[in-house]
C-alpha cells in the first residue's frame, strides 16, 4: 500500500476512532489520536521516500500526491511536532468535555496539513486546505468564547484566503490547462504580466491569510489565544507554516520563472509587509497582560521574519526563512505548551496576577527559558542561527531598500527581548503570592514533550547543520543551491561565525563562574523567600505583594504611542459594520407588501419589453 495514502488514512482513522473512543472513555480519545499520529509519524519517517507518488482519479480530475525534499521538510515538521503536542494534549485536555469533538478535529487538521504537504496538484491542495480551515475553525469555537465571534472572524479571513486561492487555481488552470503545481512553475513565465500579477496576488492573499501577514492578520491574536493551548501549539507552530509552505513554492520557484519575479516590486512589497507586520506585532505583544495574547502576537511577528526571508529570495535568506520556520515551530509550540501547563496548574495566564512559579514548576520554567532564549535569538541557541542568516542575507543582498529592512527586523527582534523577559518574569519570577502556593508541577506527560523540545533547541544551536541538511535539500529541489556546514555559519562575503569556540567559551566560563559562586557561598548562604528583600527599612506584610508587574513597559508604551494609536482591527470592524448596515438597507427591497412585489413584476416586465430588443438582439 502506498505509504502516503497510509499516512493520511491512519490519521483519518485516528480522527474517527478518537471520536468514537470518547463514548467509551474520554481519556481514550486523546490516547487514540496520539497513537495514530505516532504511527503516522513512524511510517512517514521510516517508509516515505521520494519515489512515492500516487494519483486518485476523481470525477474528471485526478488528485496527485507525491513527496519531494521540500514537502518532506514540512511534513517532517508537522508530524514531528504533532507527536509531542498530541502526547501533551492527552494530559492537557483531561477532564474537559467534548473530547471526542476536539480530538476528531485535532487529528483532522493534522491530516489536512499532511495532505497539503503531499499534494502535487492544486485541486487536492485546495481540498485539504479547506478541510484544514474548517476543522481548525471547529476547534477555535470549541471554547465557545464570545459566541464564536473570534471563530467568525477567522472563518471570514480564511474564506477570503481560500477563495482567493480557488480563483487563482482556476484562472491558472484556464490559462495553462493543468492543475499541476509543476506545470504552473514551468508555464508561469509564458503568461502575460497582468495574469501573472493576478495569479500571484491571489495566491499571496491566500497564503498570507494563514501566515498572518500585515493587513490580513487581525484574526490571528484572538484565534491563537482563545483556542485550547494544546491546539494553539499546532495552530501557531504548524498551521501558519502551511501559509509559509505555499509562499515558499511561489516565491522560490514560481515567481522566479515569471517576469514579476525579475521586477523587484512584488517581492519587496511582500518583504516590507512582513517587516512591518513583525514590528507592529511585537509592539502589541509587549503591552499584553495575558501570556497567551503575548505569544499570539509574537507568533505573528516571527512569521513576519520568515516572510521577509522568503521575499528577499537570496539563497541565504530563503535558508534563513526555512530555518526560522522550523525553529519557530519548535519553540513556539513549546511556549504555548508552557502557557497551557501554567493555565492548567495555576488557573490563569494573566501575567499581572501570576508570579514566582519557578520553584513550583521548575521543569516548565526550564523549557520556557530555553524556548525564550531561542525566540529572542540570543546565542547560542537555535534561534540565533536563523536570525543571523536573515540579517546577513539582508545586508549582503546589495539592494538599497533591504538595509532599512534590516533595521525594521532588528527593531522588532530587539523589542522582542522586552516581551521575552516580560513573559518569563510575569509567569515564573517576581514575588510569590499566597493564592498560588498550591500550584504543583505539571504532570510528567506534559512536561516531557516540553523539555524534549527545549533540549532539541539546544542541539540545533550547537549543530545547526542538522537542520541545514534537509533545508538545503529542499532548496536544491526548488532550484536554489546553497552550501552549508555543520557548525559554521557563513555569508556570501565569506564572513563566518564558528559555533564551537562560542560553545566552548560559554560552557567553560559558565562552569567556572557557577562553580566559583556555588562553592564558596554554598556553606553559609541560606535561601530566603522573595518577601525578604531590601525595602529601605520598610517591612512588608506577608500578604503585601510588591512585584512590579502592572504596565511593565509603560515608558516604552509612551515612546511608541504614535504607532499604537491606529489599529487595523478597528478599520476592519468599521468596514464590517458599514457593509452590514448596507446589506440591511438592501434587503429593505423586500417590503412585506405583496402589492409591491406585484409592481416589481410589472415594472420588470415593462422594462424588459422596452429594452428587450437591445439586450436580446446579440
Amino acid at each position, binding site marked *: 500500500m502506498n505509504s502516503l495514502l497510509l499516512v493520511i488514512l491512519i490519521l483519518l482513522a485516528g480522527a474517527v476512532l478518537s471520536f468514537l473512543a470518547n463514548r467509551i472513555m474520554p481519556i481514550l480519545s486523546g490516547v487514540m489520536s496520539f497513537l495514530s499520529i505516532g504511527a503516522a509519524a513512524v511510517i512517514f519517517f521510516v517508509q516515505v521516500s521520494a519515489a512515492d507518488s500516487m494519483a486518485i482519479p476523481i470525477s474528471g480530475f485526478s488528485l496527485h500526491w507525491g513527496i519531494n525534499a521540500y514537502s518532506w521538510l514540512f511534513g517532517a515538521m508537522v508530524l514531528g511536532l504533532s507527536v509531542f503536542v498530541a502526547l501533551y494534549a492527552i494530559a492537557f485536555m483531561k477532564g474537559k468535555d467534548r473530547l471526542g469533538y476536539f480530538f476528531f478535529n485535532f487529528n483532522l487538521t493534522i491530516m489536512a496539513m499532511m495532505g497539503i504537504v503531499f499534494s502535487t496538484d492544486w485541486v487536492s491542495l485546495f481540498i485539504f486546505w479547506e478541510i484544514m480551515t474548517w476543522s481548525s475553525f471547529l476547534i477555535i469555537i470549541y471554547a465557545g468564547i464570545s459566541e464564536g465571534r473570534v471563530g467568525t472572524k477567522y472563518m471570514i479571513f480564511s474564506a477570503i484566503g481560500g477563495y482567493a486561492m480557488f480563483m487563482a487555481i482556476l484562472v491558472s488552470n484556464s490559462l495553462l490547462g493543468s492543475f499541476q503545481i509543476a506545470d504552473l512553475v514551468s508555464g508561469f513565465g509564458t503568461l502575460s504580466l497582468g495574469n501573472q500579477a493576478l495569479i500571484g496576488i491571489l495566491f499571496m492573499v491566500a497564503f498570507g491569510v494563514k501566515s498572518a501577514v500585515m493587513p490580513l492578520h487581525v484574526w490571528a491574536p484572538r484565534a491563537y489565544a482563545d483556542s485550547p493551548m494544546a491546539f494553539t501549539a499546532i495552530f501557531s507552530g504548524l498551521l501558519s507554516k502551511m501559509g509559509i509552505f505555499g509562499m515558499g513554492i511561489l516565491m522560490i520557484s514560481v515567481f522566479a520563472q515569471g517576469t514579476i519575479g525579475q521586477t523587484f516590486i512584488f517581492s519587496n512589497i511582500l518583504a516590507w509587509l512582513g517587516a512591518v507586520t513583525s514590528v507592529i506585532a511585537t509592539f502589541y505583544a509587549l503591552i499584553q497582560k495575558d501570556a497567551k495574547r503575548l505569544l499570539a502576537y509574537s507568533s505573528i511577528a516571527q512569521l513576519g521574519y520568515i516572510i521577509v526571508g522568503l521575499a528577499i529570495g537570496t539563497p541565504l535568506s530563503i535558508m534563513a526563512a526555512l530555518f526560522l520556520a522550523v525553529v519557530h515551530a519548535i519553540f513556539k509550540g513549546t511556549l504555548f505548551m508552557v502557557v497551557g501547563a501554567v493555565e492548567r496548574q495555576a488557573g490563569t495566564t494573566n501575567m499581572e496576577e501570576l508570579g514566582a512559579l519557578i520553584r513550583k514548576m521548575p521543569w516548565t520554567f526550564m523549557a520556557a527559558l530555553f524556548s525564550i532564549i531561542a525566540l529572542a535569538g540570543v546565542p547560542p541557541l537555535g534561534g540565533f542561527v536563523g536570525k543571523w542568516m536573515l540579517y546577513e542575507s539582508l545586508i549582503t543582498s546589495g539592494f538599497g531598500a533591504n538595509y532599512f529592512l534590516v533595521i525594521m527586523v532588528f527593531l522588532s527582534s530587539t523589542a522582542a527581548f522586552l516581551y521575552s523577559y516580560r513573559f518569563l518574569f510575569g509567569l515564573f519570577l517576581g514575588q510569590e503570592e499566597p493564592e498560588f502556593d498550591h500550584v504543583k508541577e505539571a504532570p510528567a506527560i506534559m512536561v516531557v514533550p516540553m523539555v524534549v523540545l527545549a533540549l532539541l533547541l539546544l542541539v540545533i544551536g550547537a549543530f545547526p547543520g542538522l537542520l541545514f541538511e534537509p533545508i538545503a535539500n529542499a532548496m536544491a529541489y526548488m532550484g536554489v543551491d546553497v552550501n552549508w556546514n555543520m557548525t559554521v555559519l557563513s555569508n556570501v562575503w565569506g564572513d563566518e561565525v564558528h559555533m564551537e569556540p562560542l560553545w566552548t567559551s560559554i560552557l567553560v566560563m559558565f562552569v567556572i563562574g557557577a562553580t566559583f559562586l556555588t562553592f564558596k557561598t554554598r556553606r553559609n548562604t541560606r535561601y530566603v523567600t522573595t518577601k525578604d528583600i531590601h525595602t529601605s527599612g520598610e517591612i512588608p506584610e506577608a500578604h503585601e505583594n510588591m512585584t512590579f508587574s502592572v504596565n511593565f513597559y509603560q515608558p516604552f508604551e509612551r515612546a511608541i504611542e504614535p504607532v499604537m494609536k491606529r489599529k487595523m482591527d478597528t478599520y476592519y470592524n468599521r468596514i464590517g459594520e458599514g457593509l452590514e448596515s448596507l446589506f440591511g438597507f438592501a434587503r*429593505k427591497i*423586500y*417590503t*412585506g*407588501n*405583496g*402589492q409591491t412585489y*406585484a*409592481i416589481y413584476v*410589472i415594472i420588470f416586465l415593462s422594462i424588459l419589453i422596452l429594452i428587450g430588443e437591445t439586450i436580446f438582439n446579440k
Partner: protein
Amino acid sequence: MDLDYNQIMSIGVYGSAIGLILIGLYAVLIKKHLTKIVIGLSIIDAGIHLLFIAIGYIKGGTAPIFSPAGEKIVANGGVMVDPVPQALVLTAIVIGFAVTAVALSLVIRLYRHHQTARIDQIKSLKW
C-alpha cells in the same frame, strides 16, 4: 379611413381584451382591498381568455363541432374556427376558477387573523 364591419369587430374584440387586462392590472396594483385584488386577477384572466378566443376565430367560421350540420358547412367550403384555443381556454377558465377559490379562502383567513383586508397593512413578513 373607412373600416368595414369585421375590422371594427376585431379592433373591438382585441381592444376590449387589452382593456380588460389593463383594468385588471389597475385593480391589482392600485387597489388595497384584498377582494378587489382577487377580482382584478380574474379580470386579467378573462382578458387573456378573450384574446385567445379572438386569435382562434376565423372570419365566418362556424363552431368546430363535428356534427352533420358542421359536416355540411365544411363540405360547402365553409370553415370552422380553430378548436384548439377554445379547448385551452376552457382549461384555463377552470384553473382560474380554482385559483380564485383558493385566493378567496385565503382572503377570509387573512381577514380573520388581521381584522383587516387592506393589503398594505398585512406585512408582518418582511425583509
